[in-house]
């Protein structure tokens, strides 16, 4: 048997194996996604049953006759066994029916689509800040272990894990808006710019740039920079800490020494040899931090009166608008789970060590 045909057979075998692994991975990924989604909806369903508010009264009002009350009771399926009610709930969710918000008298879904771009804008800019500052800082800290860049990253991280985000927002407003006047105050735009921008995407920076309206662009930016900077700080604290520990693992390995012996400069060994090896876990960390920013924005949006998902949920909370609260929870949960699972999938697909188990 020639060695050529043997190696061809091995390649064939390997390809088949790879294809089946990818297929199996994808199947298990979809299964776990489904399980998590069922869990999420089960929990929100459970919460909606937990409230002391009568769901029938919220539909018919408290002056309804007994007959009208009973009709609504039947129509909502409340006479059915609990798991049947859950399936009715699931069916409604899958057809995009999150109910009507009592506060805005709009379908919750259309409300959510309207407010989501504001949160998306905030979280995206924050993540960009987190990556641009956090990754180099983490690499530097690992390369200069025990020296001042390392201590800086440690202090920045500890501070970020300990400081309440709503308080940092208030202090930021007090210093940069109240005292120094470097940035604009709360909201997305100054009042007199409201409703001028044509909503192409709902992201004001993009919309105003598309229209070529740079005055609004600048104004939107001056409103955005403080909340995005604060969220970006949390993101960079986490990303820098994780980058540091990933890089420490790599830098202690022998291939780095080998790269140095071959005559590479120290920084070339760090950036060109060690850094590419942390890309996969790093992408996961960035994804996780992005997902948690979409959530963490709840408090920041409240402080900065930023009309996004978080503010929508808190407003709904105080007006006992349970449909809106649960709709928002499901959207945040779905985005969170989606990003989590996507990173997990990336990890499994690109890290050969995880394929075997």
């Amino acid at each position, binding site marked *: 048997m020639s060695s050529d045909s043997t190696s061809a057979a091995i390649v064939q075998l390997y390809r088949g194996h790879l294809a089946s692994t990818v297929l199996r991975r994808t199947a298990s990924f979809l299964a*776990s996604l489904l*399980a*998590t989604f069922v*869990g*999420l909806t089960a*929990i*929100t369903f459970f*919460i*909606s049953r*937990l*409230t*002391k508010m009568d769901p029938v009264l919220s539909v018919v009002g408290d002056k309804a006759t007994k007959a009208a009350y009973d009709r609504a009771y039947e129509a909502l399926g409340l006479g059915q066994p609990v798991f049947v009610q859950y399936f009715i709930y699931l069916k409604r969710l899958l057809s995009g029916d999150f109910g009507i918000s009592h506060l805005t008298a709009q379908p919750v879904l259309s409300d959510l689509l309207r407010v989501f771009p504001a949160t998306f804008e905030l979280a995206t800019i924050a993540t960009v800040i987190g990556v641009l500052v956090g990754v180099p800082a983490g690499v530097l800290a690992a390369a200069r272990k025990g020296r001042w860049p390392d201590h800086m990253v440690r202090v920045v991280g*500890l*501070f970020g*894990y*300990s*400081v*309440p*985000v*709503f*308080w940092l927002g*208030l*202090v930021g*407003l*007090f210093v940069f*808006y*109240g005292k120094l006047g470097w940035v604009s105050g709360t909201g997305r735009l100054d009042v007199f710019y409201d409703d001028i921008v044509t909503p192409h995407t709902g992201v004001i920076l993009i919309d105003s740039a598309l229209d070529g309206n740079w005055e609004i662009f600048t104004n939107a930016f001056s409103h955005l920079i403080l909340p995005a900077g604060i969220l970006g700080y949390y993101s960079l604290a986490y990303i820098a800490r994780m980058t540091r520990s990933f890089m420490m693992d790599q830098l202690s390995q022998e291939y780095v020494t080998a790269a140095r012996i071959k005559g590479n400069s120290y920084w070339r060994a760090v950036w060109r040899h060690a850094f590419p090896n942390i890309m996969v876990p790093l992408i996961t960390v960035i994804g996780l931090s992005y*997902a*948690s920013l*979409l*959530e*963490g924005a*709840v*408090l920041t949006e*409240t*402080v900065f009166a930023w009309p996004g998902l978080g503010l929508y*949920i*808190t407003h709904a*909370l*105080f007006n*006992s608008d*349970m449909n809106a*609260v*649960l709709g*928002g*929870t499901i959207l*945040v*949960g779905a985005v*969170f*789970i989606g990003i*989590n*699972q996507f990173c997990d999938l990336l990890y499994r697909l690109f890290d050969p060590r995880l394929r075997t188990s």
Partner: protein
Amino acid sequence: MTGALGQWLMSETPMSRRQAILGNAYRAAGTILANPTAFAGLVIVAALVLMAVFAPWLASGKSPLDQDLAGRLAAPSAAHWFGTDELGRDIFARTLYGARVTLTIVLLVSVVVAPIGLAVGTVAGYLGGWFDSVLMRITDIFLAFPRLVLALAFAAALGPGIENAVIAISLTAWPPYARIARSETMTIARSDFIQAVVLQGASTWRILFRHIVPLCLSSVIVRLTLDMAGIILTAAGLGFLGLGAQPPTAEWGAMVSSGRDVILDQWWVATIPGLAIFIVSLGFNLLGDGLRDVFDPKSA
């Protein structure tokens, strides 16, 4: 005297169970005190406990609830060290009493979360198979959720209040403990001494509660200390949104919230309670980092 006691504590061949336990505690305490970050954390946490216990005495008789509308929003002075809030209440006294609320929440959440996590994790890890798959699937589902938003939804459904905030935080905080307890249990379950107990005819429950749980405790406690800051921040966030302790109770998050409208003119109303939250979280983070270095040198 100290010499003899020290020798008794440090003895490599303890003569009684009590001597072994006390000796271990003594050695752990020594390591923590020798670690500057852990020591700083310990000092801050001890200060929090003292503040909570001696609040009435430290506030020198000032009540956290007494209103003085004539002296509202007064700047920090000799009479009111941290100034007064929008109802003329003394912020220094309120910050001291706020330590009680924070400590209560932290203690209650730990008391709820650790047993749930231990029970789920050890049962899943020891029994394995079908139990393990189902319990871990449930844990994963909870882990995949956004914590704050879920706690918000729970708190909104249950109604505002400290007890409900504790329930909401606990419901979202237990999964990591189950994970830790499970992985510890899986290593312990394979050891010879467990096999020996099985051969002696011990029941599954006896093995779980008398042999496995005590060995999982230290990792759970370390994780709990590291998590404390997160619990405090979540509780303060709920308080800030009005879903935690209800007025007029002095709670740090709610105090920051009440100072929000006057932040540009009367900065102290929001700034000081926020600073308290920050310092206490920092203390728990430092202590947790230190404890982890002491008990689990691998991950340092």
